[in-house]
């Protein structure tokens, strides 16, 4: 019995099924609540999977190994963000200059404010270096935390949390800020909440989703270039 149990919880089949079922549940919750902003499938799924692996005492490392096949598809899915952009390409006209100014500015402000807020509120140097790249898409946040002396795995978690924050609150906060232009809304969301924010925008409005995807890509680029200098300057 215990041998079978051991096999079961360490089998990729079990953790994959658990993840897919939790995601499925998250989508059900979203549909049942009529698309409530808080009911983001990724959020529901993380809570459910986190609860289950804690309850059955399964190591996160084992869980992560078993779900490697899912993580793999994040790359091709990122490539696929070119598709909504292609469908909305006519809207790029007259937008290139605003975009090329706003994105580096946003990336610099994101990094600097994260570092300063952590330091002012008593976080240590390590935490500041880990928090700095949180607006970049997860794989980039990991790489940037690693190369700038932060904790890579925690940087991934923070990036995902800030992505979920954008998916939950981004559109409502943009309304409060009176940003109504669909392209500007997408650009702002993608610059602070990367792919997870983009997925919420894609569900609401294709233009916003397309520009969020583009913004995520450009922000990853801007952050990779700016982060080492800002860390050196502020820490």
């Amino acid at each position, binding site marked *: 019995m215990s041998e079978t149990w051991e096999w079961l919880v360490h089998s990729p089949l079990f953790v994959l099924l658990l993840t897919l079922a939790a995601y499925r549940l998250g989508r059900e919750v979203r549909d049942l609540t009529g698309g409530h902003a808080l009911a983001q499938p990724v959020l529901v799924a993380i809570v459910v999977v986190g609860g289950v692996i804690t309850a059955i005492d399964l190591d996160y490392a084992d869980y992560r190994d078993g779900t490697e096949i899912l993580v793999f598809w994040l790359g091709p899915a990122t490539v696929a963000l070119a598709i909504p952009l292609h469908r909305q390409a006519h809207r790029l006209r007259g937008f290139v200059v605003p975009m090329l100014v706003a994105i580096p500015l946003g*990336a610099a402000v994101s990094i600097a404010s*994260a570092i300063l807020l952590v330091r002012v*509120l008593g976080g240590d140097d390590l935490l500041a270096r880990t928090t700095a790249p949180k*607006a970049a898409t997860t794989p980039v946040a990991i790489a940037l935390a690693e190369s700038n002396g932060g904790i890579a795995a925690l940087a991934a978690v923070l990036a995902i949390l800030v992505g979920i*924050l*954008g998916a939950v609150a981004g559109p409502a906060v943009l309304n409060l800020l009176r940003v109504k232009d669909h392209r500007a809304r997408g650009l702002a969301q993608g610059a602070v909440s990367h792919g*997870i924010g983009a997925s919420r925008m894609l569900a609401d409005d294709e233009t916003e989703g397309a520009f969020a995807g583009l913004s995520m890509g450009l922000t990853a680029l801007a952050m990779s270039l700016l982060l080492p200098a800002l860390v050196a300057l502020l820490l």
Partner: protein
Amino acid sequence: MITGLTWLLACQLAGEVLVRLLDVPVPGPVVGMLILFVLLRLRDAGDDATVVRAGQGLLRHLQLFFIPAGVGVVTYLATIRDNVLPIAVALVGSWLIGLAVVGWTTVLLERWLPERRTT
């Protein structure tokens, strides 16, 4: 479906190889995204193209692929609890400042720049 996925993987691979050859600090998939964008523009791909259908299938479930890394939060619950104030304020504060700066800058520049189209 398989043909479409093959295109996506090929673009990612090209992106990954390119960033390594040129030694630029950009993730491979982001360069792959730009390569696919150029290909789609050149071929003026329609909605029935295999790569479009496969890609949109993946994008519908984009959130799924973030779950495994997100579950990593269970290993950092203690660290987060010990630093809850700096982490929470830095995440939310920096997120809000970034959102406002990008949103407002874009809107203002769109309004000011003369080549703005009225359509």
